[in-house]
């Protein structure tokens, strides 16, 4: 909850003209080996195609401890079409308390997308696969 308030405050600060209540935190996504729990807030909400935007990730352990990492990578694409994202998004800021800024998110087709976020925290490496239907 504290993390949520912090992220919401950050959102309000970084986009003064936007109302923080416009942003909705995602469901909890669990990494493939269960090491991490992740939620995200899209700064474009609802997510629509053809607009570049940022996400705020929150990563924690299954028992709720924020995860600190300097190695978070983003990949993704449309498995049905065998192509990737039109951009190369990346983590550009670690905001503390398990929160991270991902810039450069963009989708260019409606349909089923998979976003794979790989987190390496002190040698513990695991993937979170977020699915989206646009």
């Amino acid at each position, binding site marked *: 909850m504290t993390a949520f308030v912090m992220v919401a405050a950050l959102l309000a600060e970084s986009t003064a003209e936007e109302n923080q209540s416009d942003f909705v935190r995602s469901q909890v996504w669990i990494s493939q080996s269960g090491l991490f729990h992740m939620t995200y807030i899209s700064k474009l909400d609802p997510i629509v195609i*053809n607009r*570049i935007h940022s996400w705020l990730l929150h990563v924690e352990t299954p028992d709720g401890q924020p995860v600190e990492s300097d190695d978070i990578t983003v990949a993704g694409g449309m498995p049905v079409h065998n*192509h*990737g994202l*039109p951009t190369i*998004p990346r983590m550009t800021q670690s905001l503390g308390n398990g929160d991270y800024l991902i810039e450069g998110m963009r989708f*260019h087709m*409606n349909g089923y997308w998979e976003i794979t976020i790989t987190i390496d925290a002190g040698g513990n490496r695991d993937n979170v696969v977020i699915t989206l239907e646009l």
Partner: protein
Amino acid sequence: MAKGVNSRSRFVTVIGLVVAVVLVASWFSRAVDPAPWTETEIEILRSLWIGSLAPLAPDPTNAMADDPSARKLGQQLFFDQRLSGNGLIACATCHEPKRHFTDGRAKGQAIGTSKRNTPSIVGTAYSPWLFWDGRRDSQWSQALAPLEDPNEHGGTRMQYVRLISTDVSYRVAYEALFDPIPDLSDRSRFPDVAAPVADPQSNAAWQAMATEDRQLVNKIFVNIGKSIAAYERLLMPGPSRFDAYVQAVLDRDEAAQHAAFTDAEIMGLRLFIGEANCTQCHNGPLLTNFEFHNTGVITFPGEVPDRGRVAGVRDVKSDPFNCLGAYNDDSVKDCAELRFARTGPELIGAMRTPSLRNLEGTSPYMHKGQMATTAEILDHYNLAPPAMIGHDEAKPLKLSRRELKQLDDFLKTLAAPLVTPSEWLEAPADIDAELVDLAGSAP
């Protein structure tokens, strides 16, 4: 017994006739809108409708983007043949207003033959990338490149800057918008012809100039581009018959729907948003995702395959006039599109998705003008032959001839006059004749 056989045969005949009538009726009924659109389909139609086109966002990289005087200056520059090496080529030479700012040729013809087909300018203010390969990231930086392309305008920035400086009309208009132009009459500092281009003489002259003089010339050159972009931002598509149809669907007005579209066009639209997968790339109200795709379009006869975006993205990242460069008017320089642009082999042979609005009036099609008709385009996607290079995204549609014709009928409904007022669609008439006369005697 014979009577029994007879009656059985009559029965079989009747059943056969009934089946035949049902089959024929069902065949004909396929030409009629078979069912109302579902709510999901209506939302897709709304997303393609011109009424969903968001107001054009400000362009902070160009401080004059929405300035009325800059638009007028840009219009004059756009139609001025003096912006060329031979005094005969204007932007409008290839971007003809009456052809929706294309030229009706496979490849642009100016001083020489362009490398690719002349794309329309209409609606490109919405695109993060310009040119077929996206090698520029703003309308203003795009406008500068053809001016120095030896096959297009074929001049040098020094020539253009001198034109602005010596033509009194231009000078007055320019200085009202931007900084005063310093004295450029010293030919040892500011030669007649100079630019960082392939031509050795022009390049040598450019390299011999002092750094601050080159920056000064670049600044004025960039402002030429920014003025042209202010004009080009006005060029927007108007509502087509397709938009009238969607409006009628949104209004649940069946009479208006049938007044707007034939049954074949409705079937074509169903295919467009469904089985034909067109909206994978041709989406949003401009019917483009502004992204880059390799769909296996065959190369131009006698040429090696065009590498497309894989080279374009390298070009734009090294362009001194890109969003991250010194000539962007925005101090923030977010430049997310450029900073996070995809690179790499996935983009080999990929070209920017063109808008389909006014498709009919902008033939020939594809990056080299390889296809003359929309029917040829549809045949290409129906067969989807493998790409010569790179990762081919197109898969055969396997549609019938009849379905292809319906799609073709639908594509023709996207024609419409521009929404732009007509005074912007011709050479400006208000160049002050007296000022132009004076220009001949200026330094």
